[in-house]
């Protein structure tokens, strides 16, 4: 059963009619091919119309679409082989952060990302994609291992934030993220970071220091979620649309401010509409970026990585 967001409803209605028409053709001898074609065209037109004029809040909604591909979906669609690796070697394995060696084309890469769940049970298991400190430490362990074996690192970012729990504090959530930021700057191998869904604050940044930081078209990335921003600045949950507008959280915004390096287009109707096409496109983008980055020396990559992040910020002197 597909899920439709409120602004996708007109598409849902037409798709329901299309389905009815097709059923009709099966049960009777009426020729419906013309009607089907007309309907398909109008669905396409409608989709284009709706997706050309998305508000920032609608993109936030799309980034959380329950049918959207998650990290492990991309891994299975992009990699011919994948060996998942577990554990931070200190406390436990964090199911909200997954990673392992995979093959994309001819290239062995370390892929790491936050993982959300598809149903209630999975969501609980994955803690809604909110890692604990051991998730960030596992990510760092895997990055260091990739560095040791000279393999590039791909991180896929999709989190509503680092988990704000009791044990997370006891085990040093802040320290875990901070250490990743510092260590990722000095990684000698190429690092490509892609926001595939939600990029909430430090929980996202903790695996998002890279030579290329890209955002899928319908994702958001900022210092706080629009809802939480609304709660703090407007003292009410109801100003999330305004908060999304004010914070300018979309891929287009972040690219225009040079806070990320680029946008990865999604298929018409969003990534959830065609997992296969999305993953194939992302694979091409990753391989192209790797070709560029492999041409640089480790020192060049590290210096450029540092310079890029150090140039971010607007001050008046």
């Amino acid at each position, binding site marked *: 059963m597909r899920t439709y967001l409120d602004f996708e409803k007109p598409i849902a209605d037409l798709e329901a009619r299309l389905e009815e028409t097709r059923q009709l053709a099966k049960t009777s001898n009426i020729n419906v091919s013309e009607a089907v074609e007309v309907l398909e065209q109008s669905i396409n037109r409608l989709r284009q119309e709706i997706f050309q004029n998305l508000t920032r809040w609608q993109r936030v909604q799309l980034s959380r679409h329950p049918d959207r591909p998650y990290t492990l979906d991309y891994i299975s669609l992009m990699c011919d082989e994948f060996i998942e690796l577990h554990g931070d070697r200190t406390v436990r394995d964090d199911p909200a952060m997954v990673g392992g060696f995979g093959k994309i084309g001819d290239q062995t890469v370390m892929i790491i990302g936050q993982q959300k769940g598809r149903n209630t049970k999975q969501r609980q298991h994955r803690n809604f994609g909110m890692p604990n400190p051991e998730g960030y430490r596992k990510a760092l362990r895997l990055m260091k291992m990739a560095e040791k074996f000279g393999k590039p690192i791909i991180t896929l970012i999709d989190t509503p934030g680092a988990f704000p729990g009791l044990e997370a504090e006891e085990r040093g959530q802040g320290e875990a993220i901070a250490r990743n930021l510092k260590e990722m700057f000095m990684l000698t191998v190429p690092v490509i970071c892609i926001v595939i869904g939600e990029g909430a604050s430090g929980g996202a940044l903790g695996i998002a220091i890279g030579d290329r930081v890209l955002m899928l078209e319908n994702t958001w990335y900022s210092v706080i979620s629009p809802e939480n921003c609304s709660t703090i600045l407007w003292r009410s949950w109801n100003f999330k649309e305004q908060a999304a507008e004010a914070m300018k959280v979309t891929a287009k915004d972040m690219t225009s401010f040079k806070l990320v390096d680029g946008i990865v287009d999604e298929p018409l109707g969003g990534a959830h509409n065609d997992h296969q096409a999305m993953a194939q496109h992302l694979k091409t983008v990753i391989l192209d970026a790797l070709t560029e980055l492999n041409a640089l020396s480790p020192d060049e990559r590290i210096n450029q990585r540092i310079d890029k992040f150090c140039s971010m910020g*607007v001050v008046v002197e």
Partner: protein
Amino acid sequence: MSWFVRKDKGIQTPTELKREAPDGLWYQCPNCKKAMQTREHKLNAYTCIHCNYHEKVGSEAYFSILFDDNEFVELDAAMTSGDPLKFVDTKAYPDRIRATMAKTGLRDAVRTAYGPVNGEMVTMAVMDFAFIGGSMGSVVGEKIARAVDHAIQNRTPFLMVSRSGGARMMEAGFSLMQMAKTSAKLALLSNEKLPYVSLLTDPTTGGVTASYAMLGDFNIAEPEALIGFAGPRVIRETIGKDLPKGFQSAEFVLEHGFLDFIVDRKDLKARLSTLFAMLK
């Protein structure tokens, strides 16, 4: 029926003229409520002489406590916030900045400086909580980054005094990237083998904890300071239970292995000097 009857109508003595003692002669501890002389309090490094409560002081106080004869050179003193997002919530961001500058006399939430500490040059950055909750925006990130550059160029130790609620929402994505920027600079400082001491004071939370505050070679804190990634309210809402007593206090964080030691503010200068001397 009142005991005293005011004969003249319309007496309008301004409040400040009514006081018997000159303004600011006495300080009342917000913790134990006992009074002491302001001068006495200041000489005690702004800690209570009765209960040792550490008053939440800012850059001016730390500079005067740490630098010899309060002698220092401030870096980037004129730097102020831009408004890259044209951010408006209940108030436009530039208006908020202007109002805060007028109220506090500060330019932003951090001041950076270098000067002698017991004769030894130290570069430091000290946060001011009074400026929008010590929130970290582009100015905080940039000033810290440049102070670290200064420490590297002049081969001095670097001291960071954090007191902040976290990142500044009104600079959204720009604020977030200050976490990355400061961490990058601290990685360079680390490569230079220059000591970095991070002092966490009450409160240090959010993006500040998740970047430079936790990256010290030495992470130290003032007694009873609140230190955490998520704020207590958020955690309470997440777990749906009251938090244990002392949760996220400096003592708690020390016990869990994320601090090297807790230092009384009165001993701070001496401890720093001893430490830096040992590393020479």
